[in-house]
């Protein structure tokens, strides 16, 4: 990895953090209905994303925004989705942060946990059938790894011998549930043995380590057409979402400790500065630039129009069947009758 690349990765982490800070604030201001930050996990997003090929299909959970951003999904696109505006690729149908883009090979996020894990296995099978030089990349948290779909998926991946990297973000909490109440075994990595696959546990707050682990896992998965599990240990510095107040179940001291001692961004910045690749002035400028960019995107997203009402009935099927045509007509007629009420 070149020096330029490391710096680019660092900037991406900062970008993610700034975006999170401002979007979170915008929800508090009532501008966006909901948001989820990934504070403290930026190294996981960027470290892993940078180790993938652009067209490795990604099946994520919801706290992996940095991955799609690394691929070029813009702040504007992210803001558009959060505001459910006319430019949202998802046509305003889902809650904020449920992004997806075929251009960026990032499958649309869905709220049910762990459903993406066996899906990623199916995608990996497709890659294998095509003989492609790709892996399916699947992200999930340690809480989601308790779901049946996780176990189903790992078992399938092993028996069907597919090129997949399972990436577990072990961030200490599933909403309010700490890991001690989530599992008793040795984390998630130990489960890999039971399902017949390689595993590695890595410091999730060390971006270089995450990068190296992902790169190695990817190569192994492709060359052997086999699954590999990565468990990245990290800490969810922020609340679960804007609907959560984590001070109700954990101490401020605990958060402070993780934030100050092992923050992934500070750690990497220290490294870059020591190597003479980065400076405090550049950092200040970067943060200021990023903030401005996000604010601009927010404003533009907020003032853009809502998706057309006609999009309510499209995409249920590839074509609109008769009963949906009827329902749409009835709805539009009703609204036309009460134009001021809607």
């Amino acid at each position: 990895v070149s020096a330029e690349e490391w710096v680019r990765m660092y900037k991406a982490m900062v970008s993610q953090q700034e975006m999170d800070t401002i979007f979170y604030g915008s929800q508090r201001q009532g501008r966006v209905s909901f948001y989820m930050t990934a504070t403290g996990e930026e190294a996981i997003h960027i470290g892993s994303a940078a180790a993938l090929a652009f067209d490795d299909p990604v099946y994520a959970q919801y706290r992996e925004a940095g991955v799609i951003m690394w691929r070029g999904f813009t702040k504007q696109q992210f803001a558009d989705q959060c505001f459910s505006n006319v430019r949202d690729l998802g046509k305003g149908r889902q809650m904020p942060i449920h992004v997806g883009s075929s251009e960026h090979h990032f499958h649309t996020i869905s709220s049910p946990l762990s459903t993406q894990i066996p899906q990623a296995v199916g995608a990996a099978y497709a890659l294998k059938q095509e003989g492609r030089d790709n892996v399916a990349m699947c992200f999930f948290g340690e809480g989601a790894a308790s779901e049946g779909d996780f176990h189903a998926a790992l078992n399938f991946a092993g028996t069907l011998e597919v090129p997949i990297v399972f990436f577990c973000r072990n961030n200490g909490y599933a909403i309010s549930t700490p890991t001690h109440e989530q599992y008793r075994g040795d984390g998630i990595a130990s489960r890999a043995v039971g399902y017949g696959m390689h595993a590695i546990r890595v410091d999730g707050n060390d971006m270089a380590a995450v990068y190296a682990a992902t790169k190695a896992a990817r190569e192994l998965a492709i060359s052997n057409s086999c699954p590999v599990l990565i468990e990245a240990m990290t800490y969810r510095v922020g609340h679960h979402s804007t609907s959560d107040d984590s001070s109700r179940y954990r101490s401020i001291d605990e958060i402070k400790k993780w934030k100050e001692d092992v923050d992934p961004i500070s750690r990497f910045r220290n490294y870059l500065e020591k190597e003479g690749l980065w400076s405090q002035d550049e950092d200040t400028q970067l943060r200021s630039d990023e903030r401005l960019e996000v604010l601009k995107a927010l404003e533009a997203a907020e003032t853009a129009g809502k998706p057309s009402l006609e999009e309510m009935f499209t995409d249920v099927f590839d074509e609109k069947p008769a009963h949906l045509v009827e329902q749409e007509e009835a709805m539009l007629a009703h609204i036309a009758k009460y134009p001021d009420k809607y």
Partner: protein
Amino acid sequence: MSLKRILTPLPAASAPLRRQAAAMSTAAVTKMNLFTAVNDAMRIAMKTDDTAVVFGEDVAFGGVFRCSVGLREEFGNDRVFNTPLCEQGIAGFAIGYASMGKTAIAEIQFADYIFPAFDQIVNEAAKYRYRSGNEFDVGGLTFRTPCGAVGHGGHYHSQSPEAYFTMTPGLKVVMPRSPAEAKGLLLASIRDPNPVVFLEPKALYRTSVEEVPDGDYEIALGKADVMRTGADVTVVGWGGQLRVLEAACDMAEQERGISCELIDLRTLMPWDVETVEKSVNKTGRLIVSHEAPVTGGFAAEIATKITERCFLSLEAPIERVCGYDTPFPLIYEKYYVPDKLKCFEAIVKAAEY
């Protein structure tokens, strides 16, 4: 049954392009039972689509109902393979494979065991296109699963769960009544660019035999089949129940001179409202019959919709002849099912109202 009765001409204006049998007027046929017809459909699907794969529990050796016999030998073990014993895994895997633009033919060994897969089917497959704004879809996905009473199945080898899926926007639900129907409908389902739940009445696998056109043909989804025309009562069903209803209609004709118009819905979602509406406007009386429990079963949807559409034509309340609201009981099966006599009684009641 003549060839013409089996293959319904497709309305040119509305249906997407479908390929017909190679030479409709002089089509070659082979006598087949239901599992052979299903097998034939899958073979053709796999021949014409390199991405098509068949998987599920025990499909490799031919399947517990022999639906996948010979497929592995012909297409290889990368295209026909066993999965571990896990329906939620089968469903999730199928969705992922289809989400990459491929064709996934996933078998759930018994419809009674589809429920672990329910989350994947309802929350994921059905919503994949809509929630992504059409960035992604799983149109290449078809679930195949044996359903229905078989004489000795009890709670967990007899269920007809179609109604759970009809209430899920984004899924198509199909149930064939016979081998020739099954082949055409399955090919249409596999090729339909939407996820389809294809339910196969297991009691018919061996016992339903007819001449099935050779070669590649499809029967359009969303289009009902008027199996016989009649003047007095419209009778609607799907799947295995049509054999029962045919017998009940014959009995009504012979013993009471009642002329029944018998309709096979074929596709439950989306269902052919127009065909049933047209029939009930003519007859004024409707019977809907299915094995699944009566309360909340799909007959309720049909009855309500037809009441809305045909209120002024109706001469009698719509009758439903269905399973009772109990789990499917082993020893009481013959009392439980909506048999020929119960259907006959309903037809007479409606006709004489």
